[in-house]
């Protein structure tokens, strides 16, 4: 069965420091991986995706993510955190089994302190 794990409920980081939000996945076939961000009382906004090609993908607002096939991970990163990055982050995967469905992780709350 396909699944996504975000092992940290919350990540705390100081402004200006690098941040990492972790995601591991389990799918059949080649994975299609996505990161979304949710600000309070809003829907999910697409940040970036990995489909194929370079293992390091760049997305919106200075975020990037590293795909690691051997570790089945797709961690979200940013070199220098901003207070405005504080939000709820979701990792999602679509398996290579011709399904339209996305499987979402439980979410990680990022808190960037000034």
């Amino acid at each position, binding site marked *: 069965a396909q699944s996504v794990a975000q092992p940290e409920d919350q990540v705390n980081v100081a402004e200006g420091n690098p941040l990492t939000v972790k995601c591991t996945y389990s799918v059949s076939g080649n994975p299609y991986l996505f990161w979304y961000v949710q600000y309070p009382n809003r829907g999910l906004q*697409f940040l970036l995706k990995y489909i194929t090609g370079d293992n390091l993908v760049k997305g919106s607002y200075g975020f990037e993510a590293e795909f690691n096939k051997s570790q089945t991970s797709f961690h979200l990163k940013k070199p220098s955190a901003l207070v405005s990055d504080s939000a709820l982050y979701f990792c999602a995967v679509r398996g290579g089994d011709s399904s339209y469905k996305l499987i979402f*992780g439980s979410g990680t709350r990022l808190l960037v302190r000034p």
Partner: protein
Amino acid sequence: DVKVTQSSRYLVKRTGEKVFLECVQDMDHENMFWYRQDPGLGLRLIYFSYDVKMKEKGDIPEGYSVSREKKERFSLILESASTNQTSMYLCASSSRAWNQPQHFGDGTRLSIL
């Protein structure tokens, strides 16, 4: 930009009522989805539709039904609302291309009293 619009941001209904949540997208997307979001559980798929009048059950369809009479509109129906259906409901749409993301509306926070 893709625009997915949910008709209500906040809704309060009573137990036993029939509740309609509406969603409209303006990008001619074939696929549309309804999720509910609960703390600690992430997003769970209720139903999705891959074409007009076509639908498939998601992971938690019990107590819900859907309607897609036009390509741009996807409705979620709570046949007889119960308190355990109090939640945030999110609508999304996407094209049929595998490499494209889903685009979300701002959600409807539904309270069943």
